């Protein structure tokens, strides 16, 4: 075995990684999007019931390593920054595996007065800069789900979703929430069958809105203006037509906290400064976060994420 001190990737991979990050910066800067660097060690953790932040212990420097730059970027937008992007590190406790590394590199950007469809088109342009031959397909989450699970994810009853999950070998989902049943079904039945290339899925279920706005789609179903991007069947990016309503934002925080308590997770204090920013006025905008390591994985056909970065979780 070669020494554990050594970097996990070779010079050509390092060069490609640098090329990807340089391309992102040039692409966005040339379109008038300003690079910003926000704290990686923030005062608050996200309330998201499925994202665990890493707390820093020392009382004199206590805080949380940020799971994304989202809240700071929204405070910048509310401060009048205009279009901005951040290319930096994000941290999520406990996430290690072939497609996860606790510390990872995230490209996140916001476009003022854009909607999610304009932002999806820009993301496709960016990926095409790096992979000119990539194909791209855009369809609604509902279409993709119904095609492979034969259930309408927006109108199906919770019982129907639970039974479908159990039938797929996820017996433990017999009493799970709507969002968790949809996730397990999506992962088992839809994700592996998505076409290769870029796939944009929009109009996510209302119960998985994250921090996006809700609306009624053409079929009269309540859906969220959230989208996900897949590249060769791998989840690559998540975006929103952003929620700007402070009252609704507070309600979602409360729902998150209730969900955290229900699943025995430590409660998390709400980020009052984000709420104040929304009260002061977050401009209408769309935002997206893209996993840079995963993009490199797919562009170089590297089977596991740990071989896209010089010092992965095991090699630290």
């Amino acid at each position: 075995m070669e020494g554990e001190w050594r970097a996990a990737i070779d010079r050509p991979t390092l060069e490609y990684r640098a090329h990807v990050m340089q391309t992102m910066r040039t692409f966005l800067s040339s379109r008038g999007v300003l690079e910003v660097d926000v704290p990686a060690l923030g005062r608050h953790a996200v309330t998201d019931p499925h994202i665990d932040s890493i707390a820093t212990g020392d009382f004199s420097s206590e805080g949380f390593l940020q799971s994304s730059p989202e809240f700071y970027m929204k405070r910048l937008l509310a401060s009048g920054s205009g279009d901005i992007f951040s290319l930096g590190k994000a941290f999520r406790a406990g996430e290690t595996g072939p497609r996860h590394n606790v510390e990872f590199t995230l490209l996140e950007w916001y476009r003022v007065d854009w909607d999610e469809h304009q932002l999806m088109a820009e993301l496709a342009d960016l990926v095409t800069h790096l992979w000119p031959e990539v194909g791209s397909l855009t369809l609604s989450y509902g279409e993709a789900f119904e095609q492979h699970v034969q259930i309408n994810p927006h109108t199906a009853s919770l019982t129907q979703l639970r039974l479908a999950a159990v039938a797929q070998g996820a017996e433990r989902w017999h009493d799970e929430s709507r969002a968790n049943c949809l996730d397990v079904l999506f992962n088992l039945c839809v994700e592996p069958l998505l076409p290769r290339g870029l796939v944009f899925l929009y109009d996510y279920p209302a119960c998985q809105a994250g921090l996006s706005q809700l609306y009624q789609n053409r079929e009269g179903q309540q859906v969220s203006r959230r989208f996900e991007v897949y590249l060769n069947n791998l989840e690559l990016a998540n975006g929103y037509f952003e929620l700007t309503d402070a009252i609704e934002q507070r309600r979602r925080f409360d729902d998150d906290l209730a969900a955290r308590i229900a699943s025995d997770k430590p409660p998390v204090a709400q980020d009052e400064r984000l709420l104040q920013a929304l009260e002061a006025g977050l401009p209408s905008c769309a935002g997206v976060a893209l996993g840079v390591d995963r993009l490199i994985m797919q562009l170089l056909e590297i089977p596991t994420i740990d071989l896209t970065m010089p010092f992965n979780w095991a090699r630290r």
Partner: protein
Amino acid sequence: MANYSTNEFRSGLKVMFEKEPCSILENEFVKPGKGQAFSRVKLRNLKTGRVLEKTFKSGESLEAADVMDTDMQYLYNDGDFWYFMEPQTFEQHQADEKAVGEASQWLREQDVCVVTLYNGAPLSVTPPNHVDLEILETDPGLRGDTATGGTKPAILSTGAVIKVPLFLEQNEVVRVDTRTGEYLGRAKD
């Protein structure tokens, strides 16, 4: 017994699932960006050999199965049971037809096999990958025919029936791969 949590699931780990001893073949960590983490696990039921694909919630745990692979010498078969001995302790174990299964056709007295013990009793028997067995019965050999690649059935001393090349004769000893039942060549002494 100890419990293993999903983040400890590794290939080869023996666990109890639905009251049956299983071996974990694969464990894949899945975590949608905004969703709950879970584990997609492939397990082999050690009694039936059947492979199951199950999805567990992250942090769920399974009880460890008291399953141990032990090298043992095959002694004899009394018609009902197959007897094996641990070479160090001389302790004998009797395995029934269910445990021995397909392995019975490759068992030659004195050969060392892997006996999988579950709660101290034989659960399954894995013969050596290669065994040398005598041909009891086959059609007369076609001398010199080593080129046509034809085969014929042969009954071996353990009762197994395999395909052998046409030139082989009765009473010759052949080497067989027990995992595929394929003829590998004449046994080399």
